[in-house]
């Protein structure tokens, strides 16, 4: 395991003329002295601790959420009345392009990555992910990619072709600023981050589970994360190809999308949506995982049909590859393709429906406690169901030709993404906040947060159903009275409602940040070890967890291991009678007492952040100056070699984390 990797003295080579087989701890074979700080800014900059990286993912994602939210508010301000003048046509086009790009790639995906990073190793009883340095590299690459993408605002304008960036509208002739270049390269960079993250997490889940944790005992959140990582693993290279083609088209005059050379613009659409549709599940499945964790805890019942939820998650992931063309029902595919993709799309509603029913059945017969995370989880069920059902209405291809590219679609996917993914992520934030930061988020504020968000989102996106069915297309920087109609369903009224709703929603989200402040003021109580009476492994340790996560690697006998350590069924036959046999404090204390005698964590490293830094440099090079590419490449190459030759742990600075209450024997190496 990487985290306890260290050199041995066993000669690995029998060759007679070979020098000492492997360098001994006394002779480091890294390049620089390793950074070893555990506090201060360096401990964050060079950290490879999955928990610190998870928190950083979360903070950065939240920052981008705010940026994307401001973009959304500007869009709604522009559309509040006819012939809006808040934004110019050009600015508006940039705004909706970047709103979607930011929300999808820089908020929802990294927010899910934040939870995945923080929780997956804890949920499977591991001390870190399989490749901690790659993990750090993934985070910094995502951050630099996101910053790179957003620098386009001040460097001549952001991308203006929509997040789907259909060719040939993305060619230089039609989008002459560098915005699309920034977009393509920025996504390429964040794609690298996602790909490395995917490989890392897959290996982690497959290989680093605690003893006894068979695949069907893996917590559902971790399961969903694994499905998502497989989707990423296979979806990212497809968009990579598309983005390369676009880059060659724009920067090196290739002709992939030049119709005058005989190109077929539908190539881009196919490549984009083969990536883009799995992307939808990449966005929403982590939230499904969170909801599936939260509901059982507050229903005091295991997840109804756990195996079925696992398989339906995998089925969604699998079938998700066969439905991409339902984004293209109007683009002139033949009737046969349209019929096939239409039916396939309906088929994917089945596993999705299974999830919803399983959630409701989990609650059925339970002992429901409506805390804020539970409220959000129930919110997901309601809002996502609406989004799912409107989805069924346009899986019917002929019906879709009336609805696609109208506000009806905007309504649909916001119910799915905001109602499904974002509410789910908020549920996770409230649920795991005490685990991550050791303080409870204020429940009262949390309720304000929840209700304002729910009311706001329904006010914003609900009217969009009406707008779309009344024929208002998407991506219009203005609408006119001429086409608004009168009467109850007139476009003007519902646009205004949507705009008002967006500000209610913004207020709701703001409450979350207020809540953080309120909950972390001086004098607030430390959270108890097990505030929710939770069920899974991540709670069998302190809050926040120690750097090495568990003093003793837990051994797992049940799906809901923590629950089974706390409770015992003393009933007979069909009669069940659960008694608490241990408190969380007792369980954690016992683990500490029997802690492993020595634990090696991988040391922090300079190389991941350096290598990440090389990527945007090269990307700027592609846009502005070819020599910058050379400079960036040199830095990348240097970092890769530095990385390659660096041992996983710093031999001079073996780190044995001190544990409270127990004396750990210092590692001895002969």
């Amino acid at each position, binding site marked *: *395991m990487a985290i*306890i*990797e260290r*050199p*041995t003295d*066993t000669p*690995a*080579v*029998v*060759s007679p003329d070979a*020098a*000492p087989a*492997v360098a001994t701890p006394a002779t480091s*074979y890294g390049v620089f002295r390793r950074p070893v700080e555990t506090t201060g800014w360096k401990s964050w900059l060079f950290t490879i601790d999955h928990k610190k990286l998870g928190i950083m993912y979360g903070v950065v994602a939240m920052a981008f959420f705010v940026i994307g939210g401001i973009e959304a508010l500007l869009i709604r301000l522009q559309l509040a009345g006819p012939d809006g003048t808040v934004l110019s046509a050009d600015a508006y086009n940039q705004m909706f392009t970047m709103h979607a790009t930011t929300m999808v790639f820089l908020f929802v995906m990294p927010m899910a990555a934040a939870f995945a990073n923080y929780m997956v190793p804890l949920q499977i009883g591991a001390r870190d992910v399989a*490749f901690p340095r790659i993990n750090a590299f993934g985070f910094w690459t995502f951050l630099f990619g996101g910053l790179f993408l957003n620098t386009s605002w001040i460097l001549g304008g952001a991308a203006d072709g929509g997040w789907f960036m259909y060719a040939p509208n993305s060619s230089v002739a039609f989008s002459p600023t560098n915005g699309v270049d920034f977009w393509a390269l920025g996504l390429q960079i964040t794609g690298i981050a996602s790909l490395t993250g*995917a*490989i890392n997490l*897959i*290996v982690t889940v*497959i*290989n*680093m*589970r*605690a*003893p*006894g*944790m*068979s*695949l069907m005992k893996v917590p559902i959140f971790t399961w969903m994360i694994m499905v998502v990582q497989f989707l990423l*693993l*296979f*979806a990212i*290279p*497809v968009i*990579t*190809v*598309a983005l*390369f*083609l676009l880059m*060659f088209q724009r920067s*090196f*005059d*290739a*002709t*992939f999308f030049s119709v005058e*050379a*005989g*190109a*077929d613009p539908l*190539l881009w659409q196919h*490549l984009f949506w083969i990536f883009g549709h799995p992307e939808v599940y990449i966005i929403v499945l982590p939230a499904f995982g969170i909801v599936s964790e939260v509901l059982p805890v507050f229903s005091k019942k295991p997840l109804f049909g756990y195996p079925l939820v696992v398989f339906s998650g995998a089925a969604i992931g699998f079938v998700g590859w066969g439905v991409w063309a339902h984004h293209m029902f109007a683009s002139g595919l033949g009737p046969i393709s349209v019929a096939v993709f239409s039916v396939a799309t309906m088929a994917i509603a089945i596993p999705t429906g299974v999830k919803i029913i399983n959630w409701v059945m989990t609650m059925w017969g339970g002992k429901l406690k409506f805390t804020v995370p539970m409220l959000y989880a129930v919110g997901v069920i309601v809002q996502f169901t609406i989004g799912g059902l409107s989805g069924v209405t346009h899986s019917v291809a002929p019906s879709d030709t009336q609805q696609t590219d109208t506000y009806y679609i905007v309504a649909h996917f916001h119910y799915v993404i905001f109602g499904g993914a974002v509410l789910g992520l908020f549920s996770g934030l409230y649920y795991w906040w005490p685990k991550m930061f050791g303080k409870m988020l204020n429940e009262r504020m949390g309720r304000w947060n929840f209700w304002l968000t729910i009311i706001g989102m329904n006010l914003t996106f609900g009217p969009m159903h009406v707008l779309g069915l009344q024929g208002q297309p998407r991506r219009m920087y203005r609408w006119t009275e001429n086409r608004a109609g009168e009467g109850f369903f007139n476009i003007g009224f519902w646009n205004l409602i949507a705009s008002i709703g967006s500000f209610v929603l913004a207020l709701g989200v703001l409450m979350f940040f207020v809540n953080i402040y309120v909950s972390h003021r001086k004098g607030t109580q430390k959270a108890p070890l097990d505030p929710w009476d939770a069920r899974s492994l991540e709670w069998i340790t302190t809050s926040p967890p120690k750097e090495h996560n568990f003093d003793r*690697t837990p051994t*797992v006998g049940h799906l809901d291991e923590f629950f089974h350590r706390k409770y015992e069924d003393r009933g007979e036959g069909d009669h069940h009678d659960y008694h608490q046999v241990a408190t969380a404090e007792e369980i954690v204390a016992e683990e500490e007492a029997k802690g*492993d*005698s020595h634990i090696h964590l991988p040391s922090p490293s300079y190389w991941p952040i350096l290598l990440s830094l090389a990527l945007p440099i090269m990307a700027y090079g592609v846009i502005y100056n070819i020599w910058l590419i050379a400079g960036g490449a040199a830095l990348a190459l240097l970092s890769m070699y530095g990385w*390659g*030759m*660096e*041992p*996983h742990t710093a031999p001079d600075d073996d780190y044995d984390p001190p544990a409270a209450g127990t004396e750990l024997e210092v590692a001895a190496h002969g």
Partner: protein
Amino acid sequence: MADTAVAPATGHDAHDDHGAHHTSTGLSNNKLAMWMFLGSECLLFGGLISTYMLYRGRHSENLGPDQVWDIPFTSASSFVLLMSSLTMVLAVSSAHRKDDRNTKVWLMVTALLGALFVAGQVYEFTTFYREGLGFTTSLFSSSFYTLTGFHGVHVTVGIIMLTSLVGMIGKNRVPGDKAETVELFGLYWHFVDVVWILIFTLVYLIPA
């Protein structure tokens, strides 16, 4: 999936042992990661090959594929790349026998054969260019150069990794298990070879 959770609950000794990685599947993390990476690469080349197959006939009044190919030459260079897979196997087997000297020798031979292949590709591209097939000439040329270029870059990166590996073995600076590291490089190298066989068949041999 082999669902064998090994229980290292008692032994920290196991942790310190380099050779035996205790993972839930028994497969080392590095190897699993390499397989995942190669799986991802399949789709990368899948996308590029699809693009090429769509555009191979689209060159309007410019040069078409069968007008520039030099099949005998490309066959020779393909054979050289195939041979490099053989030498890679020899390198891996030497590494497993902990024979550093021959590992280095075979890795070097592999790298050299790879370099010859890349040189052949450079030569081939040069002749194509002289014959009038530039990168921006037509859809066919753009997609051809992109596909084979991507493969060439993969080979080149592989060669640099191989030579570096030779250096690292020489200086005894391979972190982790040496035999496994060589094996991982081998996996990558074989993958690149297999992709070439696919490209050679689809791009060169099937007439447009």
